[in-house]
């Protein structure tokens, strides 16, 4: 026994598994870590534990609209954004326009979902680093958003609310009132969150200068969303490749500036999410004001969905980054090929690059800061 221990101590190098049932991997993810003492030499992410082959399901559906519930289950904490990405792709294939009111409802839903998703991401990030209270505060606010979603769509997580060419049904009569109320009460809560977590000395010590992702590396690895913006790149598909009606709204793209340490560290990625919530509130306010009161949201839904032959790649900005759908149509009622390009999949791929040389405890901070959802990684 003592011989064995001294052998390990001499060698110092070992490989350990983090996960698949580790609380800070945010799902079932296994990281093989090659360690030298406490220092990470190499990281090998092992994924696939939640693989359901979404793409095969999509190809075997006899209708494009039957794919929508499956998209919900990809990134289950931002299901509205997932549906939005898919419906705009199919609508572009059909070359149809959707009514004004639908566009406004979609944008409000997508931005509310962005806030809900960021709250979960931020809360869980804090929790990973030992800050328990902000997690509960975030969940109080997230719950309010889910209540609004539940009133309208009937579901709290997996909504199946967007339809190709419209929405499944109109919003609840209280929707405008509830949303306005939420926007009003939520703004001061962001300040509270900043006081609790963003400026917290211990939190800054754990996140600043950790997991630095330089701009060039980020682009080469295909990073997008808050991960790319945290590295100082002003890049947001809502502005740079506008879809839906995002070009009508006035909002800013928050980027990392290296305020607490190095540009592109964990704190930068975190603060981008906090600031994005404020911008989402601005969009929601403008959209609530501009939303037409009248209009049938179901009238534009086509009875028969059969795109002509062709293919396209459509992308949209989800809370995690660029969600792309590559769809090939062969004129039949079901898609010939659907490929989902999930941002979490790409971001997990760059984990080995930013965790080299970090301490094993910092791995928790790095995984939390790229905010992955395993349902989307494994599809």
């Amino acid at each position, binding site marked *: 026994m003592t011989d064995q221990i001294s052998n390990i101590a001499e060698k110092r190098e070992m490989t350990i598994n983090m996960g698949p049932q580790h609380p800070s991997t945010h799902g079932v993810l296994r990281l093989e870590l090659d360690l030298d003492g406490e220092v990470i030499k190499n990281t090998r992410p092992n994924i696939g534990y939640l693989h359901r082959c979404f793409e095969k399901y999509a190809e075997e559906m006899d209708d494009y609209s039957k794919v929508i519930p499956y998209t919900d289950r990809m990134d289950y904490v931002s299901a509205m954004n997932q549906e939005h990405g898919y419906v705009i792709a199919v609508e572009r*294939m059909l070359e149809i326009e959707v009514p004004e009111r639908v566009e406004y409802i979609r944008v409000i839903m997508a931005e509310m979902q962005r806030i809900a998703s960021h709250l979960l991401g931020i809360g869980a990030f804090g929790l990973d680093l030992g800050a328990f209270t902000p997690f509960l505060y975030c969940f109080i606010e997230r719950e309010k958003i889910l209540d609004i979603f539940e009133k309208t769509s009937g579901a709290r997580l997996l909504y199946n609310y967007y339809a190709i060419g419209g929405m499944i049904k109109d919003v609840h009569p209280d929707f405008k009132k509830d949303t306005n109320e939420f926007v009003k009460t939520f703004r001061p809560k962001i300040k509270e969150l900043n006081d609790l977590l963003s400026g917290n000395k211990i939190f800054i010590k754990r996140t600043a200068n950790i997991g630095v992702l330089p701009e060039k590396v980020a682009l080469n690895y295909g990073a997008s969303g808050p991960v790319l913006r945290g590295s100082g790149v002003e*890049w947001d598909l809502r502005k740079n490749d506008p879809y839906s009606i995002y070009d009508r709204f006035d909002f800013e793209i928050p980027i990392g500036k290296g305020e607490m340490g190095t540009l592109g560290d964990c704190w930068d990625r975190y603060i981008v999410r906090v600031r994005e919530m404020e911008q989402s509130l601005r969009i929601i306010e403008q959209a609530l004001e501009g939303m037409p009161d009248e209009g049938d949201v179901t009238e534009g839904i086509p009875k028969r969905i059969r795109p*002509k032959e*062709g293919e396209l*790649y459509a992308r949209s900005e989800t809370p995690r980054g660029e969600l792309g759908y590559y769809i090939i149509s062969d004129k039949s009622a079901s898609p010939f090929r659907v490929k989902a390009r999930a941002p979490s999949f790409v971001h997990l791929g760059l984990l080995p690059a930013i965790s080299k040389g970090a301490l094993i405890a910092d791995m928790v901070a790095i995984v939390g800061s790229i905010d992955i959802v395993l349902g989307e990684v494994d*599809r």
Partner: protein
Amino acid sequence: MKTPEEIFNYLTNQFGEEDLSFESRDIGQPWITVLASKIREVSKFLRDDSELLFDTLMCLSGIHYPKEEELGVAYHLHSTKLTHNIALKVRVPESKPNVPSVESIWKTANWHEREAWDMVGVVFDDHPNHKRILLPDDWEGHPLRKDYVQQEFYQGMPTGE
């Protein structure tokens, strides 16, 4: 910023017309079909040329064409500096599905190529870690092929319907 046609013309000036062809269908986006053996050379040019600067690979997808008995790989590129997009496509026969890896050009390709191997069965030459990614290493077949039949048992466990 260039349109797909302009990018195609720019490429044919550099590489000649034999290895490249411009294709489009009734709807959607056009693409450039590239001879498999040329894909790495073309990709490198697309990334480094000062008038193209395709710095990101947005998506890489494997496709199975059962009628032609071919496999395809689609590359969707984007330039954040010049804000233009282009799609490339490579087609190889099922019997010899080898495509040069572009991992050395865009690191994103590493995982995407592993996924295309796992799901469709395209072999990427010179890939640094050519292994399955979503399925277990000892899984049989490639699920996204149109003629795929799921194995009945995996390590003695029934795989179900």
